[in-house]
């Protein structure tokens, strides 16, 4: 069954993937921190979407779809347009490249982020592996 990004099912599948992927569990074993992914409208996406993921020691403890950021204080907020983030999900855009070329905004502790590059990249691998289609 197709898992379309972005969708409630996609977020649910990502959570299951993160909690069952042994490689991610190993690489992210020391990661402590929640993230919000803010998807700004562009292309076929007409409204802002905010996904919340509580990531802790190689597991995903909670996911939620938020209306705004007022109820949470995540360790990181990642913001990108739908077009750019869908390119990342399809493997057409490297997440580090996106960060360096202003296609993905990152707010949070850069020390923590750069010290955990393998975890970040493996998180993206998991997200890509559950993405079978993107909104069009």
């Amino acid at each position, binding site marked *: 069954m197709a898992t379309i990004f972005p969708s409630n099912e996609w977020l649910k599948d990502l959570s299951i993937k993160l909690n069952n992927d042994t490689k991610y569990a190993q690489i992210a074993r020391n990661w402590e921190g929640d993230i919000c992914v803010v998807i700004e409208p562009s292309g076929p996406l007409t409204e802002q979407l905010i996904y919340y993921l509580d990531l802790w020691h190689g597991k995903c403890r909670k996911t939620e779809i938020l209306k705004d950021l007022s109820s949470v204080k995540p360790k990181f907020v990642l913001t990108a347009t739908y077009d750019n983030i869908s390119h990342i999900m399809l493997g057409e855009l490297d997440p580090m*490249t996106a*960060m*360096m070329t*202003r296609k993905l*905004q990152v707010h949070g502790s*850069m*020390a923590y982020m*750069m*010290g955990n590059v393998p975890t970040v*990249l493996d998180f993206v691998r998991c997200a890509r592996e559950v993405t079978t289609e993107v909104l069009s």
Partner: protein
Amino acid sequence: MQPILKVNLTTGDIAEYIVPPEWERDYLGGASLAARLLYPLLTGDLDPFCPESPLLFLNGPLSGTAGPSVGRFVVCGKSPATGLWAESNCGGFWGPELRFCGYDGLWITGKAEKPVYLWLNDSHLEIRDGTEVWGKDTYESQTYIKDEVGISGAHVLTIGPAGENGVLFAGLLCDHGRAAGRTGLGAVAGSKNLKAIAVKGTKKIPLARPELFPPLRSAANHALKEDNLTHVFHDLGTACVADYADYLGAMPKKYFHSGVFEGVGKVSGSTMAETILAGVSACHACVIACGRVVRLEDGEKRKGPEYETIVSFGPNLLNDDLAAITRLGELCDRYGMDTISAGGTIGLAYYLFDRGVINIKDTSGLILHWGDVKTVEQLLHLTARREGIGEYLAQGSRLFGRHFGAEQEAVQVNGLEVAYHDPRAYSGMALVYATSPRGACHNQSDYFYVDLGQADSSLRMEFYNRQAGSEKALNVARHQDWRTVFNALVMCTFANVSVDTVVALVNSACGLDWNVEDLLGSGERAWNLKRVINNRLGLTRANDKLPKALLEPYQDGGSAGYVPPIDEMLKAYYIARGWDPETGKPTPKKLVELGLEWVTQDIWK
């Protein structure tokens, strides 16, 4: 632009030099204009240490304007390390302060009878006795001279004992620890008995369109302040790339012979931020503030190491002690030595000792064990003083290797030690190192960022895989041209500013109506002129190569198994450049195209 002040240290003559307007237009300033100005003087028979050898300190049209990361200047001449074109650029406040004096440059020739320093107070220049300050380290020298001139806000550019003693990788430092480190121009200053130059100005920097520049500058700085890379550089310093570089196998270890080192995580920018970081420092008007201030066990605040120093005295020597790296970096700064070349040359000594090529009879009795930083400290002392094994270390890795019959093991190109961005992880750096006009240099093109994805479409650059081959040759050439523009302006490569913004700033500062291709054309012209200078100094196609170690694959790590196809890449590069593939020289047609027909006879006799 403002005049350049020419100073002859032999005669004491001082004169203003007005740059012809067409040169100002064609070369903009900085290293590009320096190449045009010095072209007639840089001949094959010129000894870099003779009195006639020029030392040209030059700003660019954006230096000191408080634009985005433009508080920089360049120093140029003939390198005693490479025998080729020398340029080194430096941040801090010294360059802007020179412009505030009403001069865009200082052009030094001659040799003083005894040690001197220059004191430029607005437009008044004094050649002062420097006997008392000779022998002091760069930090002491700055303090001493500031006290002696007695004017608040004076900035001092100085050499240390390494420059006085002719160490071939001696640099000049200002504003505590900002360094013009590469190509040995500190030793050229030392050969002239020139210890330092103090500057203090009160004048306003002229702008061609003063009504347009301030809003552009403000918008550019605001945008830069919000940029991701700015946040990373601000929070972690230039060592922000360390963790990712290690992940990709781009950070050399064990003198470029190992792809992994367990202790890497202990010496990264993120570790520094979480442990010893006590503050940040910035160059003139820079919103990034990549400089580190750290506090070690003695409680004193001091300069923290940047990426190159961390790798040079860290993983390069299998050392994971960040405090020790900080102290070794400070030792180099105080002596006035380039940390890339110092660590690179010592790395070669360790490698040769490990292989049994040299032994304790050669090393002044020292045992060189990987990871032993106490010995590194001793070697730095010996190098700066040129004592014992230090006499050979002071000549850089090429000559050190040659002395011990192992020149091929030296990781250098044309006499300049390779910076710590491994071309086995970023193949674009293979071309950058092989063709840089000053030897293996990452500041002529920090192409590793392009290989990581920072391929700017407005420069008509495409993105290729970081280990792609000859298809990226044109990309590399365009990026070199773009960075040549930065080295003319003089703008910091850490400023992730849009191309359109740079074009607009240049137009308003210089009164031009250029587009990006015009600007790139200026960069290409200067790149080719530097190539011609080097051709005239004896550089041939055979000089465009990588050292042996970089053509052997790593057995492990993130770039294991790969070596860049340098021969194919060079062939494609010569075509992309419009250079003759047989000789590697710019063709007469290319020279005409760039308005450089006047040099044709010098290399095509």
